[in-house]
């Protein structure tokens, strides 16, 4: 997967169309008396790379779950590419170009890497119930092999996922999210548990994602988040605390006090 050379032009074109990949309008989510999300308003333009930061319990993953439809928001609306999807089940949102990764890898451990990627590609195409075996020259099988190479797993493509290292499983998570023409991807702490070398590889993969794909990244590793994001949203106690560019967020005194710590500098 090659990075488009004129990313700035492509992005400018996409964003000049005025289309938003995601619009959240007054999203809240309550678990009994606990308010996990409160009045979240957030817009992500097509092709934008957006980071969501915040301490543990800030509501970041809950926000992702509300976007994907893993559970419904208590109030508010979710719009994907201008379409209100609040009442659609998760799989219908996926078919509209939304993808996500999980904080803890959710993979099919008894299937091979290639089977995982093939299923991911098949999920947003027809014949999901096909009662015949995928052929080697199947277009989706070819897409799965391309994806395996894109996330640097071509050498272990026939290995059962349960036998992969943690880092490889995280790479496969990203591979699944890249399958089948995504338009907006939600990455939930993709660098969690990775070694410094694996993190560098992850940044390469994130930077090589084509320009037309927007993504939102939850990440505790500021180096990773600020290197790939164009805009940043800070969350605190289930609310949007601050929004801005990576530089603005990094240099904001309140953010430093709340999240980066007094010694950040």
């Amino acid at each position, binding site marked *: 997967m090659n990075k488009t050379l004129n990313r700035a032009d492509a992005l400018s074109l996409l964003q000049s169309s005025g289309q938003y990949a995601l619009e959240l309008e007054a999203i809240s989510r309550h678990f009994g008396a606990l308010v996990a999300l409160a009045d979240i308003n957030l817009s992500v333009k097509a092709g934008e790379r957006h980071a969501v930061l915040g301490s543990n319990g800030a509501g970041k993953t809950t926000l992702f779950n509300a976007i*994907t439809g*893993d559970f419904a928001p208590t109030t508010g609306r979710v719009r994907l590419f201008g379409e209100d999807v609040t009442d659609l*089940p*998760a*799989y219908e949102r*996926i*078919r509209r170009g939304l*993808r*996500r990764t*999980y904080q803890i890898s*959710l*993979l*099919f*451990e*008894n*299937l091979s890497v290639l*089977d*995982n990627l*093939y*299923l*991911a590609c*098949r*999920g*947003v195409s027809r*014949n*999901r*119930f*096909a*009662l*015949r*075996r*995928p*052929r*080697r020259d199947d277009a989706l099988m070819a897409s799965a092999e391309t994806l395996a190479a894109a996330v640097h797993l071509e050498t272990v493509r026939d290995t*059962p996922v*349960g*036998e992969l290292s943690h880092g490889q499983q995280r790479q496969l998570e990203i591979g*699944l999210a890249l*399958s*089948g023409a995504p338009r907006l991807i939600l990455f939930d702490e993709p660098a969690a548990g990775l070694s410094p070398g694996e993190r560098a590889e992850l940044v390469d993969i994130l930077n090589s994602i084509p320009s037309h794909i927007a993504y939102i990244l939850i990440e505790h590793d500021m180096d990773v988040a600020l290197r790939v994001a164009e805009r940043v949203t800070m969350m605190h106690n289930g609310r949007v605390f601050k929004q801005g560019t990576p530089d603005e967020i990094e240099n904001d005194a309140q953010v430093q006090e709340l999240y980066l710590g007094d010694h950040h500098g």
Partner: protein
Amino acid sequence: MWRFDPDSFRASQVRPGVIVVAVALLAYPLIATNFFIFQIGAYSLLLGTVALSLMMLAGYGGMVSLAQLTVAGFGGYMMAIFGTNSVDVHGFGWPWWVLIPSVILASATLSALIGAISVRTEGIYTIMITLAIAVAFFYFTRQNYAAFNGFTGFAGVEPPQVFGVNWRAPVPFYYLALAIAAFFYFAVLYGSRTTYGLALQAVRDNSRRMNSLGYDVTAIRVFAYFLSGLIAGTAGIMLVWFNGRISPGSISVSVAIDILVIAVVGGLRHPIGPFIGALAFVLLENFAIDLIDRERFNTVIGLVFLFIIFFSPDGILGLWERIRPHLMRKPNVARSDGARK
């Protein structure tokens, strides 16, 4: 359009051992007595086929259903009601070529309905809800005389004379049971590597992730019940022909649990497991009385069940897979057996 795919065929794992077993099964009636052909051979194949429908759901789909015998029993009742019987209740006498496909389809539809009710539960709750369905159907057939002829049930349900063959005779019946068992065995084996088969296994591994890849998990699970109903319904037809009768006792909870025991004892990881379990079960059922009182049979099968679970959670199949490398190991030669995880 379907095309033959040599890669896919090779992946079907047709090994020399499979050919040896196939030849042995085909030649079995040549050397066995009618008792062994009918009561041991054919009955094992029929119970194995019912257990195969459970293996498909549990092994590939992660859904342990105790209602598979209910589906098979429903098929048996439909044969008696819409076909012929000797008790002068119903017996509409439909021609076999209409009756058999209709009954199989009706059984699969019932199975899908059971699936639609139970797929929103997981683990122990699926077992409990399917057990509840099995118990409800048992009592319903026992108390309902208008449709199911109550406690008595139906007798005189026999296979049709097709091609001039008496299909109830031991040898033809055995080969019919073998053909059906082999068809479903290979269908399940092939199906496990189809797009749908992979999707079903992926749902078993992680349903939430499948949902987030664009799959309707509920539809995948319900369709699995439908497919397993095709197997169980067909086996139900064969079982009613085997016994010549069907009554509530044929679909009681204890028999439903026998099916679970057969599948677990044989092994749930491969379609051959249920047939191994069925053979072990039928042999024990017939010959344990040489060693103990008939009343003690459940104790024996219970002990065997405990033994297998304790020493090999993957059943006899798992036990064999653990022993096989030791038997086949050649001195000073490192070997990878490539067994599926």
